[in-house]
């Protein structure tokens, strides 16, 4: 059973004190967070929705990069399996309570290793409050995701 404490970890902007003692949100978060939402993949000109897709956002210790893992995605509806894909070392920045992230020409990880066939290009996204959204291309598959922070019982 997953512990409640883990489940309660939410994405928040890292908090630091300014000279005047006010709170700022200029530093990216170092906390891991999970989201659930819909991932839309364009296939042969048609949009194909993957419902209830889980996405994990795992910032590095420095908070300047993050790994984004997408669980159980299908690139085409006919796929008899779903796969987990990780986009490593995405560039992260934070400003005014919003975390932005981006990346280009990133080789994702899946099926135990690198998957250059699904090279990530044009990654751009942001986390605002409890919402996340991003878009990218997995090789020839334009993809976008929007989801909400995962609250698990």
């Amino acid at each position, binding site marked *: 059973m997953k512990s409640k404490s883990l489940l309660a970890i939410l994405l928040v902007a890292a908090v630091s004190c300014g000279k005047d003692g006010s709170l700022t949100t200029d530093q990216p978060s170092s906390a891991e967070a999970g989201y659930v939402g819909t991932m839309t993949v364009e296939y042969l000109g048609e949009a194909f929705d993957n419902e209830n897709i889980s996405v994990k956002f795992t910032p590095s210790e420095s908070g300047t990069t993050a790994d984004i893992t997408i669980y*159980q995605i299908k690139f085409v509806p006919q796929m008899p399996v779903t796969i*987990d894909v990780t986009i490593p070392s995405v560039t992260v920045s934070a400003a005014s309570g919003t975390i932005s992230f981006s990346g280009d020409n990133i080789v994702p990880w899946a099926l135990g290793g690198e998957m250059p066939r699904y090279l990530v290009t044009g990654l751009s996204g942001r986390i605002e409050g409890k919402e996340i959204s991003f878009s990218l291309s997995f090789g020839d598959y334009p993809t976008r995701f929007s989801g909400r922070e995962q609250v698990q019982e």
Partner: protein
Amino acid sequence: MSQVVPGVHIPDYGASLTSTIYIRGLGSRMENPALGLYVDDIPILDKNAYDFDWLGMQSATLLRGPQGTLYGRNSMGGVLLLRTPSASGRDGIQGLAEVGTAGSFRLGLASETGHQYLSAGLRHTDGYFTNIHTGRPADPYWGGGIHWRWDKAGSEKLSLSNSLHLNYSDEGGFAYGRYLDGEIQPVDYNDEGSYRRLSAIDGFKVQRRGAAINLNSVTSLQLLADRMRMDQDYTPESIFTLEQKQRSIAVAQEVVISPAKPFRHWKPQTGFFCFGKAKRMAAPVFFKEDGIRTLILDNANRNIPENLGYLDITEKEFPVDSDFGIYSWNAALYHQSAWEMSRWILTAGLRLDYGGDGMSYDSQALIHYRFVPNMSVDKSFETSYIGNLRQHSFQILPKISILYVIPLTGGLDRLTPYGNISKGFRAGGFNTQIFSDILQGLMMNGMMAGLGVHLDHSYASVGAEHTRYRPEEAWNYEIGLRYRHGSVFNGEINAYHIDCRNQQLTVFPPGKSTGRMMTNAGRSWSRGIEMELDYHRGDFQSHLSYSWCNARFREYNDGNNDYAGKRVPYVPEHSYYLGGGYRFHIANHQLAASADFRGAGPVRWNEDNSISSPVSLTIGGMVSVAFDHFNLYLRGENLGEGRSPTFYFKSVGNEFFALSRPRRISIGVDFKL
């Protein structure tokens, strides 16, 4: 006994492990038998010990139809009662030596001294079927046994006896040929098929005749150790093999009491029976190179888009180890009374039978895999499946029969119409053979999960809790007519209807498993007519028997198809036997000649009845010359060289048949000094 007794069909296939008996449409090639076997009143509790060598048998009595009231579990189709020779009071030695085709020979020696009868026998054959892959016989056999029986009447009130049977066999077997394009191919497989067994059965019997009651007690101890090796795919490919080792011990006790002085019209007997049996079984399945590819990798990669890559397993072969501890127990109380009223005989009985089974299982597998081309280093995956199961059941087994004796006039003897209703059951158990499939599914799912691949439909189809099956029950309704004319002519004809419920049938587990498992999947009925005639006059004797059996599924869905209305496979619709012999007296010697014709069929081999074989006919004969102390004989079996199918099954999508043994000729001498 096959076909000689109407309704009984004992196909000759496999090895001593698989002694399948079909009777009145009931039977099973797996797990618990439908026919109970008693040797010298000892219930044989392990089906693996049913097929054994003996040197001479004093008598064999087959009771057809459910005999649950007196004999309890696994007597649903009937009971075979064998009695071994005992000391007759004339000390001496008997012997037998026989040689025959296929390099076969048989030797036996028996000695009778005082209260003891000791016999030993040895049998060998080079085998009747050649495995064309190895060029060697597939079914050589070496076997032998020792039987010791001791009978002593301690006093008028007490009799004691002990019967000990030791048996050892080392044999090939599983001479199965692939069924391809309507033809049965020669035996052709690459891995070992063998069976080795050591069994010891001892029964101690006490008969106490008291002033008020007589008491019969039989206590038995049964030990069995065996090892089977089997090429489970029966092809020249290295797909998968099974090695199964068992060690079992069983103890049984039966006590029967009856009045010392029989009442004039009432003959009651009351009994208590119990047994306990424990078995350790190790049954590793070895997945070999072709099996890893076809059974595991092809199944896994079929679901992965080619452009992503493919899964590979590093091992050339690996075992799925499965260890089981299985125990069963049973306790029963029964009573049967017979009332004789003028020409009527009414018999009624009831058995209360409570029993249970338990199993602990421990299955393990370790493999290394990689996803090509993504992974450059192997990943290991270890899985284990450990747990316990148990179940119990309570059975009420009634029986009622009525018989009327009609004396006949005009030199005839008597006519006896009868009718009876009885219930029997076949014990439940556990599907041990499905555990390698369960592990196979867990491995595939586990490897996939390790790669971050999730199948739309999981491989793991059943859990251990689904591997148990409950007892199968049968009600038998029968009417018949017996005619007896002294020792010259005996005849009997009967008709029966059997309603079988909770029938233990094999099904495809849900999901993608390649295995099959037994479950209580359906109901069936069988209806039939049996007839036998004996004629014996002077030096001529003959026996004729015929059986018609129509056994059909009432309900049976194996998960893929519905077979309601189809005939139950393996059961011959008709069976015939005609045998006769004559003894000539020449000078001081006797010349005896006999011949027999047996037929069985048509047989439907699969559940949808799409594969069947016609009536098979075999001819046998024997000629013997008797001298003062010895006989010489020449015996022939299957003289017409008929090669009829005796068994059918499917493995890894392929179909296989076993064929009857070819013509066998043997010559021998037996003597008595």
